[in-house]
Each structure stands twice: as structure tokens, then as C-alpha cells.
């Protein structure tokens, strides 16, 4: 990461505003920036979506290929999620091997998809022990202005919901079919700014914050994954009330992903 230092007075100002229930860009504490999602953005993928939250923009692509199942799960397909935080998207990113930050984004998005059982992996199996579908979910960040996890998870979910299983192209069936997505996990990210905990942090808010908490929910109001990140702390009471807020925001994001 290159050395881009934030002005301390900006961080202090963000915290001062938060104390009054205000934010730098005029949003309310529990307000997202404008969220849009465009499925089918990439024709070369089996499913794809461009998701934007404010200026943050992320493209997710789903690709399905035939491969071998893992030896210890011969009846299950393979799902793998990867997020690329490319230097194009932010001045602080450098080319090179994945930074722990990129690895965390990948694993957090993956965890929600897997825990929610968004895809029934046994349905991806073609011939037990020999042939299975491998589902790659690749999240490509193109503009990082804060909250990559929520943008990435929204793009990934939308891509999955609009994905085609290329069964005919791979000679496995007479025709292609829709990828069967059972559950719809969505991530909601909050950061602490003093005593206030705000949703959908902007880039400046992420730099000024005292801790970040992401909660993934599904359409049945289950919590399927959580991740606390950055430097700071949340009380159990905080977590309980954030879960309630996450259900509400998650449902809204789910509607966008489905209805797109």
C-alpha cells in the first residue's frame, strides 16, 4: 500500500459530525449511498453484474466449468470466490500478490455464500468422484470509494441469480439451464464513528473509523456470517441492534439483486 496519509482534522471532523448524527456527504446514520446493479454486464461470463454503491463500482463474474470434485467430498461440486482489488481502483493499491485486505474481502463474501447454502453443491455434481461443476465467483473492483464488501456481495449475488449453467456447451445435457440459487445472502457493513455506528462507510469514513462490522443475512432472516475488521470494538448490545439493521438493509439489497 502506498503512503497516502489522511488529514487528522478530517478524521476529527467526521467524528464530530457523527456525534450530531450527521455524515460528511449529508447522509443519515442508517442511510446507504445510491445503490444500482446491472446484471449481464459481461457477456463472456455465465453470469455477471456491475454493482455500484455511490462511486464504488464492482464487477462480479460467475463462470462454470467441469472439473474433478475434491477427494473428501466426491458428491459435491466446487465453489470458489475470489476478489481482485486491482490498482486501477484506488491510488493506495499497488500491483503485486494479494494484500490481506483483498484476501479478507474474498473470504468474507465467500463465507456468506457458502454458509447460506446459496447453491446446493450436491446439485453441481455430474458423476460422483469423477466429474463436477466448478463454480467460480470472481469479484473485480474497479472503483474503490468505500464498502467493497457490500458492493462485492451484491454483485456476486446478482451474478449468481442471473447465471446460466452451460450444460449444453459442455456436452452434459441437451440444453443450458438456469443456475439454481437456493438462498440469497447479502452483506451489510457498518463502521463505528465515536458512539455512532453508521452503515455503508465511504472511503474517508473507513479511514476515520474505530472498527468495522459486517453482518450477512439471508431471505429468511437468518444471520449467516459476520466479520469484525479494522481497529476498534463493538459491544454485544451493538451487535444485536446491528443485526436488526442488517435484516432491513439486506432485504432491500436482495430485492435489487432479484429484480434487476
Amino acid at each position, binding site marked *: 500500500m*502506498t503512503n497516502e496519509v489522511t488529514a487528522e482534522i478530517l478524521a476529527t471532523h467526521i467524528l464530530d459530525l457523527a456525534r450530531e448524527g450527521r455524515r460528511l456527504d449529508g447522509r443519515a446514520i442508517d442511510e446507504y449511498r445510491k445503490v444500482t446493479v*446491472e446484471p449481464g*454486464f*459481461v*457477456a*463472456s*461470463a455465465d453470469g*455477471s453484474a*456491475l454493482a*455500484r454503491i455511490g*462511486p464504488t*463500482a464492482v*464487477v462480479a*463474474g*460467475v*463462470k462454470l*466449468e467441469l472439473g474433478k470434485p475434491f477427494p473428501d467430498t466426491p458428491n459435491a461440486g466446487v465453489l470458489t470466490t*475470489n476478489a*481482485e482489488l*486491482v*490498482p*486501477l*481502483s*484506488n*491510488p493506495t493499491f*499497488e*500491483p503485486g*500478490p494479494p494484500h490481506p485486505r483483498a484476501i479478507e474481502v474474498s473470504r468474507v463474501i465467500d463465507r456468506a455464500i457458502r454458509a447460506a447454502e446459496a447453491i446446493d453443491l450436491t446439485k453441481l455434481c455430474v458423476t460422483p468422484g469423477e466429474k463436477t461443476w466448478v463454480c*467460480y465467483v*470472481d469479484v*473485480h473492483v*474497479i*472503483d*474503490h*470509494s468505500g464498502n467493497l464488501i457490500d458492493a462485492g456481495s451484491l454483485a456476486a449475488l446478482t451474478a449468481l441469480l442471473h447465471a446460466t449453467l452451460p450444460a449444453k*456447451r*459442455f*456436452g452434459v445435457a441437451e440444453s443450458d439451464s438456469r443456475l439454481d440459487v437456493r438462498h440469497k445472502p447479502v452483506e451489510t457493513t457498518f463502521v463505528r464513528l465515536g458512539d455512532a455506528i453508521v452503515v455503508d462507510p465511504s*472511503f474517508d469514513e473507513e479511514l476515520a473509523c474505530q472498527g468495522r462490522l459486517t453482518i450477512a443475512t439471508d431471505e429468511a432472516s437468518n444471520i449467516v456470517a459476520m466479520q469484525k475488521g479494522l481497529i476498534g470494538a463493538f459491544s454485544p448490545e451493538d451487535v444485536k441492534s446491528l443485526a436488526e439493521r442488517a435484516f432491513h438493509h439486506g432485504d432491500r439489497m436482495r430485492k435489487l439483486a432479484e429484480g434487476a
Partner: protein
Amino acid sequence: MGSVGAKEVPVLLSPDGKRIDGRQLDELRSMRIVAGALHQADGSAFVEWGANKVMAAVYGPREVHPRHLQQNNKAIVQCKYNMAAFSVDERKRPGLDRRSQEISKVIAEAFESVIFVEEFPRTSIDIYIEVLQANAGTRCAGVVAASVALADAGIPMVDLLPAVAVGKVAGQIALDLKKEEDNFGEADLPMALVPQSGRLVLLQMEGHMTAEELSKSLDLGVVGCRAIYEKMKQALRDRYQLGGPAEGASA
């Protein structure tokens, strides 16, 4: 088309001279350029060219990291061309590959040939090209996008750099190859032109050509580049004429 791995060769040129997608031999694919598509970058551009989707961003001039790379009398130009895993038919593993490294190098050198690097000693001008969807000619689309991004970033240059790949399909010289033409044709020649001087700063070739075919290819490429040049200028005028940020990649 045939299924993956099939050996059947598509018909690249019909009897009445139409290409696989109906184009004439000297016809470009449709192109849309959006200057200033990104918010974080100093300069950026999004190019949709045929079925290609390419994003370019420029950061700089800025301090060089790592420091030992800096030059005392000029800026260095670094370029990284990268393809997203989902951009091609067969998923591409993320990470460095030799093809991308070579393309990065020739593009960096093309731009270093036109940027006034002496104006910014001890700095780096960083060009990033991400291919989101590929259908032949991605390095040319990358050059076009990066060139518009450099102008958007206020980098001083001799000129914008239009680029295009000329090739040979079914024995005929054709402008702006698409995927099947690139895969099954007989030659591929990407090039980038400096309109102000009429010279080429990027030139590669692979395949079989006679000297006459080469000459014809170069001429056709220059014509194609000049047409692309006008589109690039228009994209910048659209962004700066009325002021205000562009709508973004999917506008």
C-alpha cells in the same frame, strides 16, 4: 458455433465479401468511449469496442514506489495490463501471466514515446488497464482507453494514441479483427499511431504476410486509427465541453 474444443473453422469471408459479423473488410466494429468514468483515478476512460469492454485508469505523476526505480531527469511510465478472470471464454486464473506482462511492456513503451516525461522528474505515471470482457484487439482497446485516460488526467503528450489491429482473413487484409478472425485468420498486426507525426509507436505482428500485404495492412491500419482518433477526441470533448463528471461505465 461448435462446442468447446471443436476443430471446425468458421466461414470468415462470404462470397460477397462480408465478414463473419457482416462487416466490410475496411470496417471498424462499433465503439463507445466514456472519458472520466472512474472517481478515484486521476484520469480514466471506459471503452466498449465490438464485444470488448476495457477500463483504463491513470494515476500520476506521483512519487515512485519503490524509490530505486525513480529517474532523476524524467518521469517513468509504468503500465499494467490485466484481464479479469471472467473476461474470456475459459476462465483466466488471476495473477501475472507472461502474455499480460509483455503487453504491459509494449504499451508502457508506446506511451513513453509520446508523453513529455521530462516535465516531471523523479515521478511515476502509472497506467492501469483492466479487460472486463475480451473479443480480440484488447491491447488496442487498452491503448485507446489509456490514451483518453492520460488526457483526462492532464498528462502532457504529443498526441492521443489511436490503435487498431489489422489482420488477414481468408487471404484478405481486414481491419479490426474480432475473436474468430483472430483465432482462425492468417495474420494479426496491432498498431498504435501518433496522428501528429504519422508514426507508429506500437507495432507487433504474428502470422504470414507478403511484403505487399504488409504494406496494405499498414495503410489500412492508419486509416482505421485516424477514424478512431476522432472518436477519442469526441469522448473528451463530451466530458469537458459542458463540464461535470461523466455518468460512469454503464451510461
